[in-house]
């Protein structure tokens, strides 16, 4: 093969470094990274080991904040429990709905665009305060849910003021927003070649077999992606819990989400050191869950090649 002059030139140009230009283009990102991400992270790591009320200088207390979390603070453990239930129940439920509806929608029915948009709409409004206000009304003692239950003769409880049901209403709100993962599933399902199903049909495989033999393995990377995304998102839920309980986490701390408690400690009580420690604990916990998810993914996520 003969090497032509332009090829060499292009090759040389490709390798030539453009450090100066890159620095200019990346300057905003670099400043942002150091000023708003890396710097604050280091600072919050330091603050996590101090007592700091924003007015007097931070006082080093070693692992005091962490001992307080797990030894002397039942509210912290409560917030951890609430968030754990929310994540453990809400995430699988919304992914199941998302997958089931996506599979049905993928059958080539007419009106797909309409269904997809309508089901996605609640996700668009997401954790907005308007939706949280609506939710508070819907699950109120004489709200929509109980009005509908009354039609079939059931006297519903006052959902949001009962400790047993308040968290359930927030999980329902999360599940109601299954449209976003559904859209992602739908895109994944469309990537699966039709021929696979045709071949399976020739072999006489039932729909059930087809789902577990073809759809699930080929969709597993998307499922993994959705799961990871949903986990990270659920860990940080805030606005609905705040609105439903008027910022208190009530009734009886049953909706005291981790973020809500962190907000209370940091920005109501101005216990900034404790809030920083909680933030790092959240990173560790969410990170651990995501890591476990990654490790287990080896056994159930199938990548081609």
């Amino acid at each position, binding site marked *: 093969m003969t090497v032509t002059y332009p090829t060499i030139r292009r090759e040389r140009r*490709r*390798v*030539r*470094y*453009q*450090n100066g*230009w*890159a620095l*200019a*283009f990346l300057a*905003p*990102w670099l400043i*942002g*990274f150091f000023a*708003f*991400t890396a710097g*604050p*992270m280091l600072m*919050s790591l330091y*603050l996590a080991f101090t007592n700091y009320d924003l007015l007097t200088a931070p006082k080093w207390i070693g692992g005091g904040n962490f001992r307080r979390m797990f030894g002397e603070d039942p509210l912290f453990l409560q917030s951890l429990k609430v968030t754990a239930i929310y994540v453990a129940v809400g995430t699988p439920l919304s992914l199941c709905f998302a997958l089931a*509806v996506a599979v049905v929608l993928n*059958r080539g*029915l007419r*009106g797909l665009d309409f269904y997809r948009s*309508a089901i996605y*709409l*609640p*996700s*668009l409004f*997401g*954790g*907005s*305060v*308007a939706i949280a*206000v*609506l939710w508070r*009304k819907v699950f109120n003692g*004489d709200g*929509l849910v109980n*009005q*509908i239950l009354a039609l079939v003769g059931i006297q519903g409880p006052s959902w949001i003021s009962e400790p047993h049901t308040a968290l359930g209403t927030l999980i329902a709100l999360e599940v*109601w*927003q299954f*449209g*976003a993962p559904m*859209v992602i599933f*739908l*895109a994944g399902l469309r990537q699966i070649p039709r021929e696979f199903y045709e071949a399976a049909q020739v072999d006489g495989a039932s729909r059930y077999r087809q789902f577990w033999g073809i759809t699930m393995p080929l969709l597993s990377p998307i499922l993994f992606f959705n799961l990871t*995304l949903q986990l*990270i*998102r659920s860990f940080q839920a805030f606005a609905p819990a*705040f*609105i439903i309980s*008027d910022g208190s986490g009530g009734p009886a701390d049953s909706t005291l989400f981790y973020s809500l408690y*962190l907000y209370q400690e940091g920005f109501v009580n101005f216990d900034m050191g404790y*809030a*920083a420690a*909680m*933030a790092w604990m959240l*990173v560790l916990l969410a990170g651990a869950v995501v890591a476990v998810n990654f490790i287990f993914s080896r056994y159930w996520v199938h990548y081609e090649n």
Partner: protein
Amino acid sequence: MRTERKRLLAHFALVVVTLVMLYPLVWMVASSFKPTDEIFSQPGLIPKHFEPSNYAEGWKGVSTAFSIFIENSLFISVAAIIGNVISCSLAAYAFARLNFIGRRIAYATMLVTLMLPTHVTLVPQYILFNELGWVNTFYPLFVPHFFAVDAFFVLLMVQFIRSLPRELDEAARLDGCSPWKTYRYIVFPLLRPALVTTIIFTFIWTYNDFFKQLIYLNDVQLFTVPLGLRQFLDSTGDSSWGPMLAMSTLALVPPLVLFVTFQRQIVDGVATSGLKG
């Protein structure tokens, strides 16, 4: 025959799901036109007594006119959009097209910031803005966006730029274009679809964001739509459902208008990049 029945069954199931998804929203809109006692008494949609005064009353607000909240929210959102469009596209161009030392490390670092919970930087950022005297101003809510803190959009644009033919850049370079001119006159205009996605989602996220606005804004004159809605909840409790639902309905109009206008783009954006609403 059998497949026909299955098809009908699927449609039936989907209609039920769609109804359950949309009913609370439709109920909210319908209830916002009902007198308060009627909201309590019946789940039906059509108001017996049409009550548009809920909107007039809600618009007057609790202590401050609702229009001020909307103005404030729009200001913050537009400023955040401008910041994201400029800073994220600049960074994306460098990551996608320029060779520089440490590119891999910088890019990997940016990807890691995607996964970080916002809480970990929250407290020091608050302290920083407090030192700058920016608490109770709009600055903390939009200035960071001018420094490409939303790594998600950088990633989105990097992927988009990589799909553009490199020959365009090469040709521009042969014609004597500097990287700046290549970015400004070739890449940036071609980036439009990615920019539209960025604009839509920056708007919706900034407009809906409650946490940061709650922390940084204290003065009622600076309140945004989410804070305004919350104020409603506080002072009038559950007694004036009508005006409250009227303003909640109104608060959803801007994202809804965007959604109706850019439906395809939003859904495709979610599908390809895993953006969350």
